[in-house]
């Protein structure tokens, strides 16, 4: 419990900052929606001028931008990027931070096993992510609902956030795995973020090119795509299962590698 409490305290400030940025991003983004609708022109007409492939890159083409939830769907692609960066950093820092700050010789000479340290920290990080998701959900719902006309958005919203949550869990565990394998704590976080950005890029490439459709299994950003959720297809059981498998393997690897290797002092 002491490690958990300590970890929550250490992560409090960053959590508040990330929370504020996310709320700012949602309100800023949806503010644009208000500006477009008030201008009288249909956004969809405006976008028709632009080349389809460009819209694909940004994942815009499959949304009905004249509705609040459709507009939010585009915003959500970037929201999830930010939220997962937060998760992957927290995940990697579970292990890398003690080594980076050289507090290893403090913590690991205490009567506590490495597994217990990881478990306590994982729970703390999990709680941080849950809090950030609650904030995101409330901010999203309140703001989108404000601009919404007539659509039922609650179910979509819950599913979007659930999808975001699972994607975050995947990256949190991948982050922890990378840091547990990595011998260089300074490189661990950037490597984990690198992996995240590469998978994000792949998801954009898939948007651009239908032939790459099958690559969707290797990028978690495609598991719970906003377009399929908002268009009513919901979440795919295949991807939920796949997510659980990735999480389980990453966690098992994290414990295994971290218990076996020399700590960096």
């Amino acid at each position, binding site marked *: 419990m002491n490690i958990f409490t300590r970890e929550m305290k250490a992560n409090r400030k960053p959590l508040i900052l990330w929370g504020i940025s996310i709320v700012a991003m949602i309100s800023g983004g949806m503010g644009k929606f208000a500006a477009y609708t008030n201008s009288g022109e249909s956004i969809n007409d405006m976008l028709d001028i632009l080349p389809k492939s460009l819209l694909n890159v940004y994942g815009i083409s499959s949304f009905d931008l004249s509705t609040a939830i459709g507009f939010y769907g585009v915003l959500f692609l970037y929201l999830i990027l930010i939220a997962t960066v937060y998760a992957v950093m927290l995940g990697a820092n579970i292990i890398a931070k003690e080594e980076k700050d050289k507090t290893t010789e403090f913590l690991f000479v*205490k009567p506590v096993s490495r597994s217990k340290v990881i478990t306590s920290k994982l729970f703390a990080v999990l709680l941080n992510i849950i809090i950030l998701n609650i904030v995101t959900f409330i901010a999203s719902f309140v703001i989108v609902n404000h601009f919404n006309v007539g659509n039922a958005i609650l179910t979509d919203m819950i599913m979007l956030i659930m999808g975001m949550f699972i994607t975050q869990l995947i990256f949190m565990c991948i982050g922890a795995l990378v840091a547990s394998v990595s011998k260089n704590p300074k490189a661990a976080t950037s490597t984990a973020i690198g992996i995240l950005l590469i998978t994000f890029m792949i998801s954009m490439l898939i948007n651009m090119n239908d032939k790459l459709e099958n690559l969707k299994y290797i990028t978690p950003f495609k598991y719970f795509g906003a377009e399929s959720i908002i268009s009513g297809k919901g979440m795919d059981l295949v991807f939920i299962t796949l997510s659980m498998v990735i999480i389980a393997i990453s966690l098992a690897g994290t414990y295994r590698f971290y218990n076996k290797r020399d700590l960096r002092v």
Partner: protein
Amino acid sequence: MNVIETNNLTKSYGKSRGIVDISFSVKEGEIFGFIGPNGSGKSTTIRILLSLIYPTSGSANIFGKDVVAYGSEIKKEIGYLPSEVFYYANMKVIELLKYSASFYKKDCSKRINYLAEIMHLDLNKKIDDLSFGNKKKVGIVQGLLHEPKLIILDEPTSGLDPLMQQKFFDLLKEENKKGATILFSSHILSEVQKLCDRVAIIKEGKIIKLENISALKENNYKRFRIETLSKIDKNHFNIMGVNKLEIKENRVKFIFKGNINIIIKKISFIEISNIWIDEPDLEEIFMHHYSKEA
């Protein structure tokens, strides 16, 4: 009963040197010195004992239990002071100490106050604002607050002024009297001589000698530097116990091992203008005394 026991402990780091076949044991209630130049493998050995790193081969037991298999159990009774102390950012001294105490299932608050008072440590300061020496004091309190049965110290005196060093040594002697076993690593011979009962001398990853401190005390090494008023006879200092004698003009330099009175008398025969007597560093002693035996 042996509190620490290592059997052919070996750690190799690729090409760079680690430790090779380190075997020694520390008896209960003993103050055991671990002495060697920087980079000789003292910290590596200690980190294996604390299972921060794992041995490539060989094994180590503490309280009769394997350090790898029973690491977290053993550590209930170990207090450790690393050579360089690093703590979490934005924490007050008292917060850090309480966090440290929370790992042991006993109330340590009285003990924290007691130790802080002896070491003149302000508990309400932020750790980030402390000087190197004061951070070291935090480390000392932190390592002793749960009254461990085994105290492991890695170069503990760096950064402490002589007065604090003395208080710290008194504290250690007090713990030792109460029954604590101490493993004390250092590269400064005189502090090991002051405190320890037995020493292991380690060089280039190997233990080259296990010795009782009484034997080392006989070998009292001093480095002399003398400036004389006039040129002196080249053979004046050519006596037993003088090593690495260098005479340049009116400057004389040598390392002396043996009865201090003899050399002082010898010096009194000549007119000197200045004199420095200090501890030779370990490297010098090793180079001379132990290189043949190793």
